[in-house]
């Protein structure tokens, strides 16, 4: 799965939570909670969706690493790689 595909998946799942947000306009380095006005329940739903869709384990302790768009893409890229090999 390419970086672009992963970014697309992340954006799709975030849009499922905040449908009114234009993801193209979101700063990839911004805190998603602020940029999308989402709360801890929304964030948990995002983590759950990524876990279920891509079968990667995301322990709670790693949540801060996925708090930006770039961070989430980097985290998923690293963990997809390790689970495939």
């Amino acid at each position, binding site marked *: 799965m390419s970086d672009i595909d992963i970014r697309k998946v992340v954006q799709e799942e975030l849009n499922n939570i905040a449908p009114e947000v234009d993801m193209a306009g979101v700063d990839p380095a911004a805190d998603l*909670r602020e940029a999308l006005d989402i*709360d*801890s329940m929304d964030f948990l739903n995002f983590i*759950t969706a990524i*876990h279920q869709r891509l079968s990667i384990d995301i322990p*709670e302790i790693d949540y801060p690493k996925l708090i930006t768009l770039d961070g989430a893409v980097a985290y998923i890229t690293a963990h997809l790689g390790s689970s495939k090999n």
Partner: protein
Amino acid sequence: MPSLGADMEAGTLVEWLVKPGDWVKRGDVVAVVETQKGAIEIETYQPGQIEKFLVELNSKVPVGTPLAQIRTEGEVKPAAVAPAPTPPAAPAVAAPAAAPITPPVAAPVRAPSPPPVAPAAVAAVAGARASPAARKLAEERGIDLLTVTGSGPGGAITYADVEHRLGAVAAPPEKKRAPGLDLEAMRTAIAAAMARSKREIPHYYLEHQVDVTASEHWLAQKNATLPPDTRLLFGALPIKAVALAARRYPAFNGFYRDNKFEPAQAVHVGVAIAIRGGGLTAPALHDADQLSLDELMSRMRDLIQRTRAGRIRSSEMSDPTITVSSLGERGVEALYGIIYPPQVAIVGFGKVVTRPWVIDGAIGPRSVITMTLSGDHRVTDGHAGALFLAEIGKLLQEPESYE
């Protein structure tokens, strides 16, 4: 048309989820109604077979109007079904064992076991030239109802009509909208409920801080073993703590109506849910005191998702007996809530912050949360409130004791 909140006057039937001939049981979602708070799924309290619809789609009818007729299974024994006095003007309810789908008008207090129907009450509302809320407002403001033009069915005067006459609010433009959330209408509903609360309820406020470091550790340990879909959020703990404390302190759990307090039999915690874009609603998490933390979390998740998608159920709107409002991790340290009438208490939780704290004579960094209680002084005093809030704090520190 059930009453789904203290200030609801009418609702628009937008969808039937059953058809004549279908069998329904108590709690089944049968229709979708649009209110100021969005689209609400209407549950029936009456088991039986849908006989016919009494209200056409997309018509707006006042609270108390029967929406459909349900024939009960035991119709050979009509006495067992609807022994309530026959309404003088309800020709639609002709079959002896047929009961309209409509919970009692004052649903919350009778929620645990509402009678099948209250046709008398329905007739009273339907037959009135002005709704009780409209009458009350007119009386308070010294408005002669004869000078008000009614916009309700048969020219009945609604609360909005009286407000319009007062010039208090401009008449909202009649506009067609898709089912779901209408933030503008929701704002109007919040304004009405909160203004009423501040007008009628003498609030007192208490504040208490507790160290929740151990609770956070307990939660982190538990979550480390779970997949994301069953993990707990810290936000579930305050709801459980308030529910358990409310059971022990019943004077904070119930409704103030007609100049007296009516304690509720069950603990249905209203969970304040913010809607992105600026809305707020607080549907009930039923029997929160009885649920395990896992079950509570799963129901909270479902409730929040449905609320944000505009699919709240009627009982969730009408049943809350006490409200919990949490600002979550992005909020500030303290929240002083306004009681949602006719409830008598709201408990607020700020975000958890790391603070220097004295433990065993030494100062160390701890996770601290500020909790507040807004209480109705007509029902309780600060002393009882302090005991209640301290109990919530104690429970918040021992989540392992919930299960």
